[in-house]
């Protein structure tokens, strides 16, 4: 049952994403993208990261998609779906993407048998030592909780405080930069 629902969601995501990449009407593409991203949030729930699932919904679906729709509306006329949407290298890129995707799937398939058990068995094994741990916790199920994720983000010793500050500066500069770029030039 669990797996069935998972694959339903997965197929939903893949189809949405695929049609988002090939549809002619870009507005439909954006809606399909939103659907795909929402589905990914569902996958996050399956992965046990409810908090991140909600963040995904809030930011990707609630913000980025809307931003994209805004962009579409500001740069397109309504209902102009008669244009060519693919460039000249579409066949070539399809081939390359196909090869790449096949290779990825083959790699996963061929390595799954021996690397994944190793991962499973290494919960307390040697592999953990080679990893810089943000915040190791004995309780396996608390990761989605903001109590563990928050300190992991801002803990200056074991966490990612520096990256966190860097990202805040990045966001500030994005805020200012986007405003400056998108503002109409004050001619005169």
């Amino acid at each position, binding site marked *: 049952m669990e797996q069935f629902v998972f694959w339903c969601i997965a197929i939903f995501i893949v189809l949405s994403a695929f049609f988002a990449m090939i549809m002619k009407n870009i507005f439909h593409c954006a809606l399909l993208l939103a659907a795909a991203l929402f589905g990914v949030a569902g996958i996050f729930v399956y992965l046990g990261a409810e908090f991140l699932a909600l963040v995904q919904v809030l930011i990707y679906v609630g913000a980025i998609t809307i931003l994209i729709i805004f962009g579409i509306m500001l740069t397109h006329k309504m209902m102009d779906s008669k244009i060519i949407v693919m*460039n000249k290298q579409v066949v*070539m890129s399809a081939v*390359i993407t196909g*090869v*790449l995707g096949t*290779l990825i799937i*083959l790699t996963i398939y061929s390595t799954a048998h021996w690397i994944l058990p190793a991962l499973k068995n290494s919960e307390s094994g040697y592999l953990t030592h080679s990893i810089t741990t943000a915040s190791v916790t004995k309780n396996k199920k608390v990761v989605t909780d903001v109590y563990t994720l928050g300190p992991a983000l801002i803990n200056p010793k074991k966490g990612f405080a520096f990256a966190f500050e860097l990202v805040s500066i990045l966001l500030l500069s994005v805020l200012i930069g986007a405003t400056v770029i998108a503002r109409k030039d004050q001619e005169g």
Partner: protein
Amino acid sequence: MFSIAWWIPLLPILSFITIVLFTKKSKLISSGISILVMLTCFIFSIMIFIRFLSLPLSARPINFSVPWMIISSLHLNIGILIDPLSINMIVLVTFISLLVQIYSLGYMKNDPRFSVYFSYLSLFTASMLGLVLSNNYLQLFIFWELVGLCSYLLIGFWYFKPSAATACKKAFVVNRIGDFGFLMGIITLGLTFHAFDFQAVHQKIALGLNNGVGSTAAITLIALLLFCGAVGKSAQFPLHVWLPDAMEGPTPISALIHAATMVAAGVFMIARTYQVFSASTVAMTTVAYVGGFTAIFAATIALTQDDIKRILAYSTLSQLGYMVLALGVGGYTAGMFHLTSHAFFKALLFLGAGSVIHSMETNDIWKMGGLLKKMKVTGITFLIAALSISGIPPFSGFWSKDEIFDAIQSSHVQGHQILLGIAIFTAFLTSLYMFRLFFVVFLGNGHHEEDSHENHAIHESPWTMLVPMIILAFMSIFFGMINAPHLGLYSKFIYYGSHPQKAPFSIKMVLISSLVATSGIILASLFYWQKVFSAKAVANAISPIYTLLKNKYYIDEFYSFLAKYFVFGLAALCAWFDKYVVDGGMVDGSGKLICAFGRGLRKIETGKIQNYALVIFGAIAVIYLIMSF
């Protein structure tokens, strides 16, 4: 107390900056600053001089040195060396400069670039003082070039005159030839001795001569290269051509730079680096012969010139030849003594000439005549200077020239008898051309018509011009006596080696030189005053020689020829090489090669980001494929 020596070059530099930046508008303030600074420097120099006399011999010389830059093992310093030689020079330079600046107040009164003129004078004086106070070769060279620059600026002061513009360029270029040798010499010296300080280098030379470290050949090479600089700056024979042309500058400049101070820098440099020269017999001999040749060569040209300043310029050449000759034969004291006394009477001669030019507004001696009546002070001071340069006792020129004769007499240079003959004959020529000038200008009736000078009646110059001349006349009479036999104050002050060395004084030499000088005067009076003989007749009789002399031995023409066919030919060859091989083959060729590559590579630079992304992902796929097998 001696540290005030730092201020001696610094003050004129400050005065230069002040005039250029702030007080250019006001003639009064600019000249006032400049003259006051010069007076201060003169007083400082005298103070240093007096204080130095009281120093014990063991405490001399005084050397201030501060590090300038350190390049690995090479320590370059900047500093001040106070020894009798430099004291002699700073007193002389500040004194002449002071007088010339006072004189210029009158002479340049109506010039629109009056302030600029004084700023240049300040800069020149600063450079000259820096030069004579240098304690190492590099600093010497830097100030040497600065002096050259000032000379360029001042010769070309009236740059709107084409002749002045040409003359300053000529002076600059000719000096560069000498300076090239000089710089080569300094570099060779640095490579040989790994030091630039005078004292360090000279000690090493002294040690090297004893231990056989520095080879004689190397020292000879260095000395000859250094001498190139002196040849350029002091206008010795092959590079003398710039000095007569330099007379296009204002006359006080000629007095200060091209008679008394700057041209003496070459002589000073030989004296300063005397340890190098005296370590090489070949170099000394070369110096002596070049000096002797220049002396007689210039004197013969001076006989036939018409331009009052040019006559004086060739006279300067001749006298510089004397000094170099004296140094070449080992007469260190004689050379410097003649330099100093010559500075006084030659400056006086130029100032007198300036005074005459100021009132006559011409340089041609044949347009002058009988000026003694109208310009008594000028005439008498000029006469004093002429007597002094001719070597009539007891004027100072007599003493210094006699010193040189004695030095040649007692030297060990090969063929010093010939040199002595040249020197004595030059002394005769000196008095001949000098009194030719004097008689024509001051006593002859001249060819000018009184009417043509109604507008500016010939008048005596203002007191600002006369006072310096009178002071210099005084010096021309009495300065030589300080080194009279049995007195010898100068010889006790400036000497080379460990103890004063003075050539033996010989009555025979005195008699000969006096006789020669007097006969020159008499001959000149017969030709140009009493008109017993006709100069023209003589000239016609020896027409080829006269023409040769009149045209200055065609040296300028020879140089033009050289420049035209040799230098320009070489330049054309180089230009061809540069144009077709360097530019065409290498520069353009490499460019064309790159362009061709670019044209080829441009095909894959579509500017479409997705093309690039396609290539990137394609490459990833290919690498992936390769890695998986």
